């Protein structure tokens, strides 16, 4: 049992983000429109400080802050992944909303949502979980509709309504679990759920899952993913398919591992199988790269749910989910960065990209092959760990389904990769900043894959 305390310094990374968001917002009030880019710098500095603080925290022993905030390896990885991805997204967004009337709000909203995702992954109390869910979601609704155009508005509305519906269901689930488990803290619930009526507990767990699966973009909360990814501004699409997911998977894993409700593994395994299969099948016929990436993230959510299902059953489950989620985050942001750099949504727009811009083409190839799970990229290592966890937990059928899905997924990723080698037409070269993000993300993906031994040992 980690020591109890109420030291705010244990939340330093979260506080850095909060401070940066508030400072950015206040700064934005007084800055002229053309100088608002300084807010981005402030936010980036806040994120970098947060990363540093998270790194320092990771080298310290595990503890529990304020009785509901666990500072353990799951939290460390969640913090680092969220902060790193958010930093990349801020760079992507900086070019997109340059000189926008509400530029500073844009960054502040991203940071606040990221803060919610971090808390989501770190909390071990259902009430804080609900609060984190709302904090992660509500800024994201606003961000989806930030462009005030028809597709953005539609995306924001769908996102919000799906989130509201499943959030209400989640609240009901939390109420149910509180009732049958006699508490909201996970260690209380662990004892309380052991002798709770199974049907009520099952209903409560599924209702709680509804909200978390919505954040994770998994069945049945995946309906918003394609619509929002296509409709929202690209940087925001990259954000909502990456950052909230990190928090959601960490929260799912923590809930499964720490409360150990009966029937957790089969329930999540079914969801995982359905999610990966649906995502892959739906991605087959897509000609819009953003929709393709959206379904790809749905299928990746399915793979990520495999170690979540194995929480508490397999020793490999924790390294698998943590490594996979970090690898997925950086790879996914890289792929979106190339889309942003090229400014095209149709597959035909990527013909000959490798000749037009070798850096963009290679980054995209690395990221897409990474999403397939090709060595030596990071997602490959995550997938190997995921298969290992499934086999260790005795869910060979799930591993088989995941393997078949992986093979099938090659098809639609190749549909995007093959045109890259074609003959180039005279399109303008990709824009610089997103390209740099894409190259950095691809490099990190490779480094993380090659250096996976060190990363896993840490």
């Amino acid at each position, binding site marked *: 049992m980690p020591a109890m305390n109420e030291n705010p310094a244990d939340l330093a990374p979260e506080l850095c983000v909060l401070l940066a968001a508030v400072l950015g917002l206040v700064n934005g009030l007084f800055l002229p429109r053309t100088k608002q880019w300084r807010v981005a710098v402030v936010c980036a500095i806040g994120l970098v400080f947060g990363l540093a603080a998270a790194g320092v925290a990771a080298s310290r022993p595990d503890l529990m802050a304020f009785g509901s905030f666990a500072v353990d390896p799951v939290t460390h990885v969640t913090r680092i992944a969220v902060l790193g991805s958010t930093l990349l997204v801020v760079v992507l967004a900086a070019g997109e909303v340059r000189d926008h009337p509400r530029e500073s709000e844009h960054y502040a909203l991203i940071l606040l949502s990221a803060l919610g995702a971090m808390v989501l992954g770190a909390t071990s109390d259902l009430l804080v979980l609900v609060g984190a869910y709302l904090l992660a979601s509500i800024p994201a609704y606003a961000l989806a509709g930030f462009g005030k155009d028809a597709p953005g508005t539609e995306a924001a*509305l*769908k996102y919000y*309504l*799906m989130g509201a*519906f*499943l959030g209400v*269901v989640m609240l009901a689930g939390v109420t149910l679990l509180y009732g049958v488990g006699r508490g909201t803290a996970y260690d209380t619930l662990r004892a309380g759920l052991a002798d709770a009526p*199974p*049907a009520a*507990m*099952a*209903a409560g*767990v*599924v*209702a709680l*899952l*509804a909200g978390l699966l919505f954040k994770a973009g998994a*069945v*049945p*909360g995946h*309906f*918003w993913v*394609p*619509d929002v990814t296509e409709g929202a501004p690209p940087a925001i699409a990259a954000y909502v398919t990456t950052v909230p997911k990190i928090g959601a998977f960490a929260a799912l894993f923590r809930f499964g591992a720490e409360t150990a*409700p*009966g*029937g*957790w*593994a*089969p*329930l999540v395994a*079914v*969801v995982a199988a359905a999610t990966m*299969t*649906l995502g892959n*099948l*739906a*991605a*087959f*016929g897509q000609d819009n790269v953003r929709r393709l990436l959206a379904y790809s993230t749905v299928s990746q959510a399915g793979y990520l749910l495999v170690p979540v299902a194995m929480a508490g059953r397999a020793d490999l489950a924790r390294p698998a989910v943590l490594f996979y989620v970090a690898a997925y985050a950086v790879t996914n942001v890289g792929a979106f960065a190339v889309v942003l750099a090229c400014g095209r949504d149709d597959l035909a727009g990527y013909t000959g990209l490798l000749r037009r811009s070798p850096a963009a083409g290679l980054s995209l190839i690395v990221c897409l092959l990474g999403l397939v799970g090709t060595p030596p990229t990071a997602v490959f290592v995550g997938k190997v760990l995921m298969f290992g966890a499934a086999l260790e937990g005795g869910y060979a059928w799930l591993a088989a389904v995941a393997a078949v899905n992986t093979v*099938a997924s090659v*098809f639609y990723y190749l549909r995007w990769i093959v045109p890259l080698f074609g003959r180039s037409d005279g399109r303008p070269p990709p824009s610089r900043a997103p390209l740099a993000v894409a190259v950095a993300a691809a490099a990190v993906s490779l480094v993380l894959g090659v250096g996976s031994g060190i990363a896993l040992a840490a």
Partner: protein
Amino acid sequence: MMLPGWPGGLAVDGLSAVLLVTLAVVLAAVLAYSAREGYGPRFFVLMLLFAAAMAVTVTASDLLLLLMGWEVMGAMSYALIGYAWPDAGRVRAADTAFLTTRAADLGLYAAAGFAVAGAHSLGLDALAHAEAPWRDLIAAGVVVSALGKSAQLPFSFWLSKAMAGPSPVSALLHSATMVVAGAYLLMRLHPLLDATGWASTLVSWAGALTALLMGAVALAQRDLKQLLAASTCAQIGFMVLAAGAGTVGGGTAHLVAHAAVKSLLFLCAGVWLTRDGSHRLVDVAFGAGALALAGVPPLSLWVTKDEVLAGVGDPALLVVAFAASVLSAAYAGKALLRVLRPAGSSPVGLSQRVPLAGLAVAACGLGVLGLPGVAGEWRRLLGATDDVTPDVWMLVLSGVLAVVTVGAVVLARRVPEPGWALDWLLLERAATAGVVRPVFALARALDRFDDRVVDGAVRGVARAGRGTAALAGRRVEIRVDGVVSLTARAARWLAALARRPQTGQLHLYYAQAAVVLAVLVAVAVLAAG
């Protein structure tokens, strides 16, 4: 030393020295003569290489170097005989000469191999000390290649073909290089021949019979160069006889004297062939050479031939050799008739007159090698101390026979021409029928074997592979293909199905999410229960 651990190299002893000097003198005379004949640089390069190869051959002290010189000499002889290469006939003649000597050369390769196996050395001196079966095999190989190179029976026909080359080539090839290489080798390896017991007898008889039969062939020839070619075979026969009988001093003296005589005769013949008329000096020189060839006293070949004959012990051999000696007088007389034929006058340059005169002097005067004082010195030089000085009766007899024969021929102005000898004893046809055709037949048979059996097997495997592939394509592939396309169709259908829930209408999303959640509750209840 050519190979580490195998002693050998170039060395000059008495025999080598004599041959080198002979080679140098003849080469100088021939090249001086050729300088006015208008040959290109290629001719002189090849001639010099030819002579250099001969020099290596006579100075080599191991079989490896000897083989090198031997082979280069053979190759150069090919190039020189076919010097006028636009004439296909000459190239064919060069082919015949080269392939014949080359085939016989294989004996020397075999001998080298046997020497490594039996004598554990390639040194020429060591060959006689090889163990019994190897020594005989070495001797056999050496004898075959020497007889081939020296155009002895049964290889003589290639020398007839070699006449296709220019006259200076013939002058060199017939006197100081190529053909004498075989005789030299046999004289050099005389201890080996003696050691085997049978080889020296065989070599003696081969030499004597060649001298006799080729003498007859020479007598039958109507073309002067063909006559001279056959006479070369016959005269080399005397040297081979000397090698077999162990008369190295006499054989070498005969070799040197014959080199002077034959190069002189060929150069004179060359003058006649390339010009309409003649020159008195050429006529005189040719006459002197022909008389020397006939063995008329006191000219050179009379003395040297008798020295060779003096060493022959077997009376039967001696009779054959004497008969050959008479024949040589006869064909020399026939050649002499050519000088007596009237011809127009043609100028001959000084650079050609000098070598002709010099060679003529040598051809007449080299008999001094047989004078008592000189002969002892000569034998000591060559290390041939057991040579026998010819008896006076023998000298007188051979001299008288030669003079009488030449006189008779010149007086009668015609000689009996044995018809059977006209075509070089049909040796070439025999070789064609006995060796060339069977080899070609064997090659064709092997070719058919290769085409039908080896190739056929390969093609059969390929056909079988295609057949199997076709079978697999018809029977298996369709089914596999069917399964694959079925999978693809199913995947497409499922993909279309998977996109069906994404209607874009929110109330349907709500309904679907609710239904799925209800199903999940059922799953959870079942799993928890």
